[in-house]
């Protein structure tokens, strides 16, 4: 197995960055964000980034086109979504799985989003297998093995002081070839898998929820939720957006920005009607989307068990607890 001492990781990234832009989970003050790696940047592995790597492919704010009006003429300058090949380094197995769901949304069923596709096609994925789960992790319950990374071009894991590298695609082979003088052949193995503190059982839940839209469970479950957008913005699978204008006299530009079903104006219609008028309907939508609508459309639960929402919810709304409560609801009662 190809390996390098973890202290020499920067040398590998330095080598790769000569040919590619390398995006990695970097320490920025007290945050971990996927940003462009430069010499001296500190890479943090085995810990969730504050904001999931969805922001690489689906940025929170993305300009779509600029426009200007001159008498009768309207000129539109589109932001052509092109992207040179780049490396996404250090993505964890759960976040990698979330990209499959974003792919479903942005690339299938007859709709292809050019902005997302350009970045997704250009990405060479180097995944990092977690050393061990954090206490808020429950990816195993969502069918994810944190010790494998299907779909990654290269997979890395840590054994003692060494980082092991394995190519999983021709592109990965090529990239490893580039740094082969830095790598040594070593016998390395993954640590024994660890138990998770948190668990969730979604077996049969989507079907059950299909008859729970009007259930009294929702009448009180929502009560603590403040309808901020933290859970959805931090969620690697949440993908709602809104298109906004910046108008200044006769010119401006359009951006698409993350939006969230937690906000009151998300479903607010022209004329003032809001089909989700209170916190209850918004709260219910978030969980039904993850646990029922998305599975119905794409046969996947829209949760990868990264635990970011549990860690950061201001009032400790815990999706594993919600799932357990929903499982317990007696539909005949």
């Amino acid at each position, binding site marked *: 197995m190809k390996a390098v001492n973890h202290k020499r990781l920067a040398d590998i990234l330095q080598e790769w960055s000569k040919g590619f832009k390398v995006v990695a989970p970097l320490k920025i003050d007290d945050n971990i964000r996927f940003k462009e790696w430069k010499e001296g940047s500190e890479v943090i592995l085995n810990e969730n980034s504050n904001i999931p790597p969805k922001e690489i492919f689906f940025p929170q704010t993305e300009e779509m086109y600029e426009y200007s009006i001159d008498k009768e003429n309207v000129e539109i300058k589109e932001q052509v979504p092109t992207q040179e090949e780049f490396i996404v380094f250090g993505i964890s197995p759960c976040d990698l799985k979330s990209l499959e769901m974003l792919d479903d949304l942005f690339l299938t069923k007859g709709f292809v989003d050019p902005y997302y596709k350009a970045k997704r096609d250009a990405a060479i994925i180097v995944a990092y297998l977690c050393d061990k789960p954090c206490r808020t992790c429950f990816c195993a319950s969502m069918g994810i093995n944190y010790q494998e990374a299907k779909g990654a071009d290269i997979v890395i894991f840590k054994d003692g002081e060494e980082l092991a590298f394995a190519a999983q695609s021709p592109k990965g082979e090529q990239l490893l070839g580039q740094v082969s003088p830095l790598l040594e052949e070593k016998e390395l193995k993954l640590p024994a898998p660890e138990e998770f503190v948190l668990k969730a059982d979604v077996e049969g839940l989507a079907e059950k929820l299909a008859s729970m839209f009007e259930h009294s469970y929702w009448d009180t479950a929502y009560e603590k939720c403040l309808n901020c957008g933290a859970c959805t913005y931090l969620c690697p699978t949440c993908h709602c957006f809104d298109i906004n204008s910046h108008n200044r006299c006769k010119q401006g530009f359009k951006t698409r*920005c993350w939006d969230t079903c937690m906000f009151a104006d998300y479903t607010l219609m022209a004329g003032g009607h809001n089909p989700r008028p209170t916190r209850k309907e918004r709260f219910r939508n978030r969980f039904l989307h993850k646990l029922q609508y998305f599975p119905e459309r794409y046969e996947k639960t829209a949760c990868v068990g990264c635990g970011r929402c549990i860690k950061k919810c201001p009032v*400790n709304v815990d999706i594993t607890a919600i799932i357990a409560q929903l499982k317990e609801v007696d539909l005949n009662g």
Partner: protein
Amino acid sequence: MRELVDKAKTIAKELLAKGEVDLVMGWEKGTFEDKTSPLFMRKPEDVDKLVINEFCFNSLAPYLLYYKNHQGKIALFVKGCDSRGVVRLIQDEQVKRDKIYLIGVPCTGMMELNHEGQLVDAAKCRGCTHPNPVLYDIILGEEVEAKSPGERFAAVEKETGSAREEVWKAWARNYDKCIRCYACQRICPACNCRECIFVDQGQEWIERRVDETENGAYSLIRAYHIAGRCVECGECERVCPVGLPIMKLNKKIAKDIEELFGPYEAGVDLEDKSPLGHFKYDDPEEFM
């Protein structure tokens, strides 16, 4: 604080059983031992879940805004800072004093896990001047001493004397991280406008675009809007998912207010008027 839980449960159960209130707001154990979550109790048996400990971070005061049209009386547990939030809501006529029943919790300070996994004094409690509830109908135990009241403005003092450009550079770096989830706004007991420009974004004061300009505008509008009304509970900074030092700005404004108008702490005295909310002939007016 844990020893107060039995008395707390007795009081809550009695209030519900006797029908004196129809809702009690408290806390229950959260995902982990060091987490709690707001609890809404309507029946005496709901009270079994109640916990009182050093992890009851959430102020329950902001929830009162959701029950403005509630017919019955609501009881809620209040630590020192939470009670100041309630006082502010009463002063702003968001809630009527006789519609709420306050169960005071003398607070010995919250504890949180640091990055190394050790339990330490919570950052939000540093410089707390009022650990005991300033307004209550019943109090659970003996009043406690404030631990570090002299450090109320510790977060701001470091910056005093720094060049303006330096200060702005640091804030710009912070605004670059903000994702505008509005957790800081939703959790704030001082944020009680009927129509908030950050809730209904169909206006053009601020755009949804996330960048230094819009994020900076958001942060500054909010800071100025709660000037003189911030009870310094630190909830905004605690819940920020990207760790922005929001309280630094709020403390700076609170300090400026003290320097301009004399000693003042929001929400401490029901009868006290906010220096920015009323007019006096000897108010400083060097900008005129």
